[in-house]
């Protein structure tokens, strides 16, 4: 079998088992997955899939891979088993008609941990972080960013030339905020008990405390 590849896609009765080689790094996996999906040109569309061999990946890396699969029309599932080594590879069945497919919303990535200095999360859609963004960490999103914690790092929303993006964070402490191409170099120290919203208004980044009685 093609053991040297970072990604192996195998068809089973229940759907597609996508086997990741844990010895490969995440970037290799990601690029190869996109390559294979591109090559299949919609062939997998509508099939259920499960990622196998994700033990070494960070949760947001796993969700990035899943998001890529979903972009190509695959449906995430938890119960496609990993085929045994000698299992004969069958050609994936032609896409079955699936009912109750959720309407495709906007892409979003959920990061369930604190980002420490030197760690970076980049994603083309929206990003939600359940934790803090510590000094020296980076978050870059094509869409909006929501941080359920204190933000002291570098955050860039609307990186895909989207001036209407915004950032919501519970706390702000010496962060650098960018929205589209605008930069706010320093936010005040110790802003707790938010949520605070940062967005572009009249060509500048402004931030204010979200007051729920407003709306």
């Amino acid at each position, binding site marked *: 079998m093609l053991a040297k590849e970072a990604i192996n896609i195998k068809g089973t009765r229940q759907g597609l088992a996508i086997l990741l080689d844990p010895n490969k790094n995440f970037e290799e996996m990601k690029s190869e997955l996109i390559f294979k999906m591109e090559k299949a040109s919609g062939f997998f569309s509508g099939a259920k899939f499960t990622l196998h061999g994700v033990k070494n990946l960070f949760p947001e890396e796993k969700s990035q891979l899943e998001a890529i699969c979903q972009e190509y029309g695959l449906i995430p599932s938890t119960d496609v088993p990993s085929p045994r080594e000698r299992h004969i590879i069958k050609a994936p069945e032609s896409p079955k008609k699936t009912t109750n497919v959720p309407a495709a919303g906007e892409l979003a990535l959920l990061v369930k941990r604190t980002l420490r200095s030197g760690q970076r999360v980049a994603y083309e859609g929206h990003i939600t972080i359940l934790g*803090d963004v510590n000094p020296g960490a980076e978050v870059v999103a094509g869409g909006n960013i929501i941080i359920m914690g204190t933000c002291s790092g570098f955050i860039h929303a609307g990186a895909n030339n989207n001036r209407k993006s915004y950032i919501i964070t519970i706390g702000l402490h010496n962060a650098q905020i960018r929205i589209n191409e605008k930069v706010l170099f320093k936010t005040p120290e110790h802003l707790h008990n938010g949520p605070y919203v940062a967005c572009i208004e009249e060509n500048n980044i402004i931030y204010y405390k979200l007051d729920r009685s407003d709306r």
Partner: protein
Amino acid sequence: MGEVIVVTSGKGGVGKTTTTANLGAGLASLNNRVCLIDADIGLRNLDVVMGLENRIVYDLVDVTSGNCPYKKALIKDKRFENLYLLPAAQTKDKTAVNPDQMRVLCDEMRDEYDYIIVDCPAGIEQGFRNAIAGANQAIVVTTPEVSAVRDADRIIGLLEKEDLREPKLIINRMRYHMVKHGDMMSIDDIIEILAVDLLGVVPEDELVVISTNRGEMVVINNNSKSGQAYRNIVRRIKGENVPMMDLEDSGFMKKLRRMIGLK
């Protein structure tokens, strides 16, 4: 099976080597078999701090490259029967060893010792990767300065990536009067940023410098606060539940307590 603990910090000069030496001596004084490995190849210090530099014959690179068995390279400590040092090479650099060799070495030594403590070099490059390769536990040392805490945060992230989860934190060189005046980060500030378990706080103490210069360890000095702090940390490593030392009380009350044996 012994524990392999790496002492690391990212930033230099926060007290990794001093901590390694004191924890080693403290654990050895409680009748554990302890071996210290100096992984700071090219800038070796641990032997100097322990006062053993003129006894070095073979070093870490000799062992990993197969020139001699590790037992031949070990130096026995002057004071403790069951404390050994594997010194670093001074004439080589970090690339003389690779992580796989360190892993093999640590696994080999694990059967012989209760605790193997690896003194990690500053930085996050090859030396760091070597030092953490064989470890199954990590202690992160920091001082109450923004730069040191920032580096500690980075190191904790890298340790998690290498599957050394839940590292323990030692805050070194704490000056309580400065914290009181708001001139230094407090313990709570540091814990809020790093979000890891605190193993202990070592106060700033001139005795550390004095004993280091003499090649002694402050942990065996019963009259120093920093020695007491290290002894507490050692007991916590052993799994005891030791309350955090109240470092703020000093003067008369402290003397009184010591007199009636409450220390």
